[in-house]
């Protein structure tokens, strides 16, 4: 299929980008890597009259680590993130997750910011930023604002971004002593969107786990935290029995709906297996 006709503009400054977005309002769409958007255009699922290509905005590029936060520009590609040793040290969860995203050709173009802004319910990064308690930096005509990851994802492909705003960067707390991350995913084929994926992050004190965040992708309209399962584990030493108990609470945390690859019951079961496997990896990773 061919997309409906559209205009194309490539601003080189944020100001220019905001001008374009303001001038065209609802008819404009931002394009970053194009790896999600162009498919929807080709299928004529959306037909914006102008694409605003933000790939020339230097302000949205780059990865930098301070002592407390790792800042990842929205235009960072999946490949750049996988390759970044800084990111791997400061937030190892991201690399663990990114290798599950699509295939090299797509990773070379697709961006971190694009994935978050697109908010596919089965995407890996949204679950990761929630698990890491990251903060999203959003730029608009009137300056920038900061939103906690947990508040950013509203629903199916819906986020806190308002018309005319851009996701500029994400700030992730740098991994502190004792913290560990785990990631697991079930997909039908390597590179497919997750049937269920789990991003887990927490602090280990000996065998005990604290501040644990278990965030699932692929099982709901947005990333979901497994609060009840977390509560079972909080402050306790990880044992088989305890994890089994946490797993038994998952049905209250998650309510996966049927999709083309599996029914809700299967996805719940797979989510439970992920909980066991990811926690066992984390507990084993001294």
């Amino acid at each position: 299929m061919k997309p409906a006709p559209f205009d194309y503009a490539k601003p080189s400054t944020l100001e220019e980008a905001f001008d374009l977005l303001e001038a065209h309002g609802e008819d404009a769409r931002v394009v970053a890597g194009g790896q999600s958007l162009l498919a929807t255009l080709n299928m004529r699922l959306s037909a914006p009259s102008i694409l605003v290509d933000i790939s020339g905005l230097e302000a949205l590029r780059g990865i930098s680590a301070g002592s407390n936060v790792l800042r990842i520009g929205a235009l960072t590609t999946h490949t750049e993130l996988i390759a970044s040793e800084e990111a791997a040290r400061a937030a190892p969860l991201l690399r663990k997750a990114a290798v599950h995203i699509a295939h090299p050709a797509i990773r070379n173009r697709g961006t971190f910011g694009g994935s978050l802004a697109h908010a596919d319910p089965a995407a890996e990064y949204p679950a990761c930023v929630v698990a890491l308690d990251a903060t999203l930096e959003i730029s608009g005509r009137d300056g920038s604002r900061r939103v906690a990851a947990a508040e950013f994802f509203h629903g199916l492909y819906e986020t806190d971004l308002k018309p005319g705003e851009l996701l500029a960067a994400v700030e992730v707390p740098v991994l502190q002593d004792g913290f560990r991350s785990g990631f697991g995913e079930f997909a039908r084929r390597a590179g497919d969107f997750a049937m269920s994926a789990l991003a887990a992050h927490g602090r280990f004190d000996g065998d005990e786990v604290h501040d644990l965040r278990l965030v699932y992708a692929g099982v709901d309209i947005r990333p979901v935290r497994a609060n009840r399962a977390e509560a079972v584990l909080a402050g306790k030493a990880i044992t088989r029995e305890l994890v089994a108990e946490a797993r038994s609470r998952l049905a209250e945390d998650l309510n996966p709906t049927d999709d083309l690859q599996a029914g809700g019951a299967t996805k719940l079961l797979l989510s439970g297996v992920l909980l066991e496997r990811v926690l066992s990896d984390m507990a084993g990773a001294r």
Partner: protein
Amino acid sequence: MTDKSPLTLEDLPNSYIGRTIPRPNIRRLAEGRGTFTDDLTLPRMAHVAFLRSPYAHAEIKSIDTAQAETSPGVIRIVAGEEMSRYCTPWVGVLTHLKGLKSAPQFALAVGRVRWQGEPVVAVVAQSRAQAEDAVALVEVDYEPLPPVVDMETALAPETPVLHPELGDNLAFERVVEAGDVDAAFAEADAVAEEVLHFGRHTGVTLEPRVLVGDYNAGAGKLTVYMSTQSPHMMKNIFATHTGIDEDDVRVISKDVGGSFGIKIHTYPDDMATVALSVMLKRPVKFVADRLESFVSDIHARDHRVKAKIAVKDGKITAIEMDDLTGIGPYSVYPRTSAVECNQVLNLVGGPYDFANYRAVGRVVLQNKNIMCQYRAVGHPVAFGVTEALVDSAARAAGMDPAALRRNSVIPDDSYPYTAASGIKFEALSHQESLEKILKLMDYEGLRADQAKLRQEGVYRGIGLAAMIEVTNPSPMFYGVGGAHISARDGVTIRLDPTGGVTCATGVTEQGQGTEAVIAQIAASAIGVPIEKVRVVTGDTETTPYGGGTWASRGAGIAGEAALQAGRALRANILEVAGAMLQAEPDRLDIRNAAVVDADTGSERMTLADLGKTVYFRGNELPDGVSPELVATRHYSPRQFPFAFTNGVQACWLEVDPDTGFVKLLDFWVVEDCGTVINPQLVDEQIRGGVVQGIGAALYEHCIYDEDGNMRNATMADYLVPMAAEMPDITIEHVETPTGESVLGAKGVGEAGTAGAPAAVFNAINDAIGALGGKITAIPATPELILKALGKV
């Protein structure tokens, strides 16, 4: 580049038969210099896009094109009635498939739509994008009708009839009865029963269907550039339905990016494109995009089979089965959609020696996409059924599955052999092949590993699948039923004054290497280096009339024609050389593109010198010598309806019982396709086929909802097998040449696809059997396996 295989046909310096030769076209394709039909741009070429039915079954109340007509670039918008004046409808029946019925099918729906995806309106515009823009503006008012979706209830009295004039939804029915089935079951030591489902899937070609119709009113000629497997067949079809004299139609097939049986049928959008070109007197291009391919390219399989097997004294004695398949709303023209079911009935039990067989097959109409022949027509279903039964029977009889196969395959010394279903085998090698694969895979060792790992909670399975493949079809396949599909193919070989050799043939190149094989055979037969040989395919005006690519016939049929034509040309050359050199032709030979003394090998004259004399200085030739440096030979098998091949495949995999995920660990194939012309091409055909078979076993599925809509018609949701999940595939051969031809080659294009699903299926059940699980359907998704294990 060549390997060290022993020369198998002729011990000449230019013997390429049995050797791995890189395909002459590979470099061009790898460098991106292929010419696929979509690469073609003709002056004044317009583009067509189709509005397709969003309903599985509906009445077309009205069509409003007013707004679309004004859309930029639009040239013409045509709907069913008008189209039917330029392209007559067709009916997909053949007389030898007795009782087969279908209704007239139009290029664009007239009155009713019968599947989601059926083309309704054609929009021709200056560009494809403009055509699509205008398609979005066409308004069609549909009155939805109840769709017939489930094949199980298609024949129920309360189910609507798709084509009222047919009376019911039964397209075809066949019964086979041989021996005394009831007695065999009554006397059996063990009996096993299965109800199996084979999911509907499709062939996903990398290059979609594409054609350019170019009607030249001045010359009264129609040229169709088309990605097709069968240019001559399409020529006849275009002529028949547009009313243009068949001799004025030319079909040209450039490079083809995969076909798998998808590109050998009459598609309404293809026919409409050609008719539009006639209507508009200008070239019109149609390229199916991925989304429309899923709902318009033929689908295949979708069988439900109930089957039963009897074992006595450790050997199979009877099989009984009932096959039901739904083919969509029409039997596809001209090959018909009864062939897959017919093949299933022919092939079930094919590798085994038993006399008692009862089979019923029913083919029903329904409101889903059309269904027809796709790579290994019927085979994966037939061997899926047979091999599942054999494994179940082994369990029921307390035997090892390899042992039951060993006892039951047709013995290698019992040929010619007629199977219970009536099919005839010239010579096969089941016993040798089975022993070879058991050794290759270290069957006993794997069984020991499996038992040991099971103690550790690791569930691995071994799946065996014996199979046969229909190849080198005779006229009994289609021609006898009235279809203009040539079973015969020819090769014309010409020697030029450069010493170069050009072969033209009616078989086609789909990416499988036909051109390489023809070049190898021609070079060997004449005695020239392969670099001297050019091969021309895919043009009805410049190649001998022939059938093209289907039923694994290229190497076996056109290969034999190439051998005979090469030998004839060689004899012609030696006759001229004899006259010129005043030698007896039989004391001369051709080696490395030169005429030599047969005894000493010393060079007498190069073929280039001979050619130059013949063409430029014919005056130097002795009187009475009339050189013919062109030879044509044709070949069509006649003694046997098909040259059957045989093989065994084996799969080793692991099932994660917690998740239902399958990890393929290893895969082996032993194949007997007769004379192997090019080992690499043969092995890659097998590997590609196995991968497609794995696709059927684990991934590929056209999922329909109860309204008859295909729900996963994108590459994101329709899962094709991908490299990361594929196992290594180890291949060995047994060679039992067919005696019908001198070459002895049988086909190999479909073997992998034929056997792999059964091997994977059996391996999964072998793995989960220990946990009390058993699957009865493919594709075996994680969810299906979890259900079989009672986990969800």
